[in-house]
């Protein structure tokens, strides 16, 4: 490592989405030196794609809301498998985090009396999502970005990918990265690393995620010896675009349903009335008349007294319902369900509240959503599982490693509610930044970096250039995505999962034969090759965890075990590296304490 460019910080944040930026801001505020490293340009992270809003019990739109209701909704949405303490912190701290964004320049849509307007969303009992039309994520990331670069002047290494985490005697000591532009390596030494790398959507063909979502943080943490939990819970968002092929999987915001949109099958039936689970039976309208009354109240800005339409059930339920309608022959022409807002709201309102959706369908699918229904089908969207963290500090099980946002596990249990990811980024991004800063300050001296370790890694990263052309990285990624969609999708069987494990072994062998053309300068073929390693690791983790959970719960459906099993309701499936082998164990979850249990049971 003679000529290796090296920089040293107290805290290194990996990822510049909402969680990463919020973590960096907090760590700087606590007086430590901080760098952010991100795979794309600043401001392009997947947070910009978040549309519907950020869930926080501000109670500006419906005064009946409060943290207890938000806590209960989150836990019930997660099928009670959530880390209860994280769910509690989310519900309690989200309002302050949203108001803080406003103090940093964010401009949310307003109520008539000038406060932050909140929108209805699936699984939330009251209107709870602060939003900006359907581009809430953009507003959030721009606000955090400006705070980072203007108010705080944090060092940001753009278009720079972390290849491996480095450890010294079991503690984090930094990360080896490569600059995508030049292909040169950059060693970032740090006492603490905050992973904020997002999810794993690119393991599936039909997904709503960008190229960046290759499970980097999950795999980096796993390689470093950290525990992963809940990896069997992959969220399939009920409404992705289906046609034309070019746009298959692109997200259609839940805000369409929050604004009154309804789902219909090819017979024109509002089929969601047939899919209300027992747990939610009392909470949802059972007639169209009642559902319409709720919509009328919401549009008029009144407190809704009627129960909510079943289109606003949690995502796991709606996704399964759409898949079943299509499977049973009641699908739309291109194999989806109809999502209709045109017949429910005025064209002017639709363009005002859902401008990006209007533009997306108009330009990419020749569909005018103010006049005709959309066609939608579930798309891989979000990873509930991730790095096991301490709820207060977001510390992983490896000293010096922290994780926040989608890459962290626990908060969302078996299914995430829409809007909770954006509050997750803020609440736990801040906590991770504080946790990492506190940890870094307590370390005496710089952790060591072994030359031998670094040399071995750089040799491994450059190896694909020596293997000219025997496999294409794109072909291997494509085959992996096909296989995961087929074998580890919405409905899973033991046979399919076993086949997936066998296929993963073959794919791993193919990945080892991938050769790269060209040089190290901005070479997407090389980058894709290096990403394959992470995709294969997380795909195996999802598959093994899915095999271990022999029940159906939330986003995880096992065809031969269609019901939830009480025993599995008390355990996390933990994925852990032992030598070169991936092991899976069950660990009991900490039971919900009495006073919170009362809230869950509605005694509060």
């Amino acid at each position, binding site marked *: 490592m003679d000529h290796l460019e090296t920089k040293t910080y107290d805290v290194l944040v990996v990822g510049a989405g909402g969680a990463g930026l919020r973590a960096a801001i907090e760590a700087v505020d606590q007086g430590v030196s901080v760098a952010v490293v991100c795979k794309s340009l600043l401001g392009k992270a997947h947070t910009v794609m978040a549309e519907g809003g950020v869930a926080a019990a501000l109670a500006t739109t419906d005064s009946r809301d409060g943290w207890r209701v938000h806590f209960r909704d989150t836990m019930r949405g997660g099928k009670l498998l959530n880390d209860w303490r994280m769910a509690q912190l989310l519900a309690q701290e989200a309002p302050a985090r949203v108001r803080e964004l406003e103090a940093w320049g964010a401009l949310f849509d307003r109520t008539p009396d000038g406060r932050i307007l909140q929108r209805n969303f699936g699984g939330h009992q009251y209107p709870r999502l602060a939003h900006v039309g359907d581009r809430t994520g953009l507003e959030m990331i721009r606000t955090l970005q400006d705070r980072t670069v203007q108010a705080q002047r944090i060092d940001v290494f753009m278009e720079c990918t972390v290849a491996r985490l480095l450890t010294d005697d079991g503690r984090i000591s930094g990360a080896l990265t490569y600059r995508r532009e030049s292909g040169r390596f950059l060693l970032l030494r740090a006492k603490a690393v905050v992973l904020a790398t997002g999810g794993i959507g690119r393991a599936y063909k039909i997904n709503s995620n960008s190229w960046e979502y290759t499970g980097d943080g999950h795999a980096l943490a796993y390689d470093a010896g950290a525990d992963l939990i809940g990896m069997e819970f992959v969220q399939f968002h009920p409404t992705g675009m289906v046609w034309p092929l070019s746009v298959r999987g692109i997200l259609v915001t839940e805000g369409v349903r929050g604004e009154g949109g309804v789902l219909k099958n090819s017979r024109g039936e509002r089929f969601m009335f047939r899919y209300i689970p027992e747990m939610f039976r009392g909470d949802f309208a059972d007639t169209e008349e009642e559902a319409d009354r709720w919509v009328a109240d919401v549009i008029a800005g009144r407190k809704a007294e009627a129960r909510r339409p079943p289109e606003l059930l949690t995502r796991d339920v709606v996704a399964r319902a759409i898949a079943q309608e299509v499977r049973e022959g009641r699908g739309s022409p291109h194999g989806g369900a109809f999502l209709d807002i045109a017949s429910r709201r005025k064209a002017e309102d639709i363009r005002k509240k859902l401008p990006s959706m209007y533009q997306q369908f108009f330009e990419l699918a020749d569909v005018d959503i103010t006049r005709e229904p959309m066609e939608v089908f579930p798309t891989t969207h979000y990873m509930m599982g991730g790095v096991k963290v301490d709820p207060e500090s977001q510390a992983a099980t490896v000293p010096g490693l922290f994780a926040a946002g989608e890459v962290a596990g626990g908060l969302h249990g078996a299914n995430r509610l829409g809007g909770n990811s954006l509050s997750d980024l803020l609440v736990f991004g801040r906590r991770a930044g504080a946790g990492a800063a506190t940890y870094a300050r307590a370390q005496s001296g710089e952790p060591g970096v072994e030359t031998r370790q670094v040399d071995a890694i750089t040799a491994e990263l450059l190896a694909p250039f020596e293997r000219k052309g025997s496999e*294409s990285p794109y072909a291997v990624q494509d085959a992996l995505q096909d296989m995961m969609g087929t074998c580890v999708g919405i409905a899973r069987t033991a046979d399919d999962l076993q086949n997936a494990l066998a296929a993963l072994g073959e794919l791993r062998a193919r990945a080892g034969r991938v050769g790269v053309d060209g040089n190290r300068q901005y070479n997407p073929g090389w980058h894709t090759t290096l990403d394959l390693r992470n995709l294969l690791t997380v795909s195996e983790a999802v598959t093994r965890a899915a095999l271990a959970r022999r029940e159906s719960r939330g986003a995880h459906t096992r065809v031969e075990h269609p019901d939830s099993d009480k025993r599995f309701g008390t355990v996390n499936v933990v994925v852990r590296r032992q030598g070169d082998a991936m092991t899976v164990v069950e660990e009991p979850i900490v039971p919900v304490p009495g006073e919170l249990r009362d809230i869950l049971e509605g005694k509060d």
Partner: protein
Amino acid sequence: MEAVLKIFRGDATSGAFRDYTVPLDEGMVVLDAVHWVQAHQASDLACRWNCKAGRCGSCSAEVNGKPRLMCMTRMDHFPPGEPITLAPMKAFPVLKDLVCDVSWNYSVNRRIPAFKPAPPEADGTWRMQQVDIDRVQEFRKCIECFLCQDVCHVLRDHDRKDSFAGPRFLVRLAGLEMHPLDVESRGAHLKEEAGIGFCNITKCCTEVCPESIHITDNAIIPLKERVVDEFYDPLRRLWRRLRGSA
């Protein structure tokens, strides 16, 4: 059905357009075609992209000479049988193929005086009316694709990056200046650092904005008026002279 793409391949020192024949699918966009080339013909073809839905502003390029987002440009937008030319944005130094060095934009942004809010109301929050934030929300739709920067002749033809911030950052400054809570003054920054006087309102930026922001009419012209009021108004000028400040 097939289409021929003529894609710029090269870097800062040299390069040429190369032909790639791509099969067409219904609804396909230019970015799909570029991905197909990567997967089948040139795995090291460099391009930026993220969301593939016009939301992140990464895949800016010049398609048949026009600055566009590749993910929002349909292949059937072009006459069949005619080749489609893809080049990197011309206003910025090319790094490789379709990727150029946009770091100058980030350095401009860094120099803009940060948002500074007025004190909150007694309950610690702020009241704002929707009508008062509508115009700022328009500016905040910007996805930083830098197509407006690319098309702006002050930057593209005259390369005045040393003295002009470009339409993107005038939009950003407008978003701060017209923010109902902001109390910072950016008049001097607009005049001196951002060089707002360089803009002569040809509206090319507005035409290419994928978010349909009325850059010239709603952002730049009102800012120009502010600068004129602050620095060229005869009464204010006299007042400044009397007070001994510039």
